[in-house]
């Protein structure tokens, strides 16, 4: 068998080189690099693939650059509804949550469903109640909001469209810009 390995992603979309500054690219690549180091360390210490992917996704959820956890995009109603899933290849065990609004790290709720529940997928109020019972961190709904995501929502509403993680088009001149 090959060496232990971890791979991660932070979303896909219209990420043209011409619209991405070197500074922005550096922020993303540094965040990915640090996350990989954390996952790699777990595997190097003999940790399980399940623990490595849990920790990697937890870290990515805590980085506002990415559309998960803090930094999640807004719904049309200007709320956040997050989904997460984890699967263990040993026995096809799985745990998932959908539509959670106050669980700081949805992936930890999914992991708790896998570890401590006879179910596979819990949604909304039931998922949040389960997370509370599991002692997971609960936060205010605006914990997940960022100014960048709010601006993207305004733009998406204006165009009456929905967009992928990194697909909200940037107009040549911001409609918010004021000229003298």
């Amino acid at each position, binding site marked *: 068998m090959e060496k232990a390995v971890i791979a991660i*992603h932070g979303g896909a979309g219209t990420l043209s080189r011409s619209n991405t500054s070197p500074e922005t690219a550096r922020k993303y690549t540094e965040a990915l690099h640090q996350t990989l180091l954390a996952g790699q360390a777990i595997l190097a210490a003999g940790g399980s693939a399940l623990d490595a992917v849990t920790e990697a996704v937890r870290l*990515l959820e805590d980085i506002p650059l990415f559309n998960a956890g803090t930094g999640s995009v*807004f*719904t049309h109603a200007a*709320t956040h509804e*997050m989904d997460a899933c984890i699967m263990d*290849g040993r026995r096809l065990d799985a745990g998932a949550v959908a539509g959670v609004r106050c669980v700081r790290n949805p992936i930890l709720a999914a992991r708790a469903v896998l570890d401590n529940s006879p179910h596979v997928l819990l949604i909304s109020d039931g998922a949040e109640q389960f997370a509370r019972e599991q002692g997971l961190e609960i936060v205010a709904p605006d914990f997940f909001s960022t100014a960048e995501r709010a601006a993207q929502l305004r733009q998406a509403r204006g165009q009456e469209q929905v967009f992928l993680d990194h697909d909200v088009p940037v107009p040549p001149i911001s409609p918010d810009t004021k000229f003298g």
Partner: protein
Amino acid sequence: TVGAVALDSQGNLAAATSTGGMTNKRPGRVGDSPLPGAGCYANNANVAVSCTGTGEVFIRMLAAYDVAALMEYSGVSLPEAADRVIKEKLVALNGEGGLIAIDREGHVVMPFNTEGMYRGVAWVGDIPSVGIWQE
């Protein structure tokens, strides 16, 4: 959407995916990320997969499981299965996005059909590698 797949020293595979969904989505909308087999799948017999992209299309395709099924039933390699799912089947349904996957032998693929996908890989003992655009 963020995700991770891993192979450990015991030969076990795992996958995880988490998302806020799509900007301006209707409240109550659920995408592929929390659905085992659609946006996230792991089976020690062949592969671990995490997806990102147009969730509704990934659900209809059972995209993550489709990679595993192609490998299991058709005997194709991971690169061939993943490319077929992302660059042929997803495109045919006007879906956008990509996936990351590791097979039980430690082969890694990260195909996508958008302009870019934030991604990276790290083998134990090696320097991590990250990327944004097509190489």
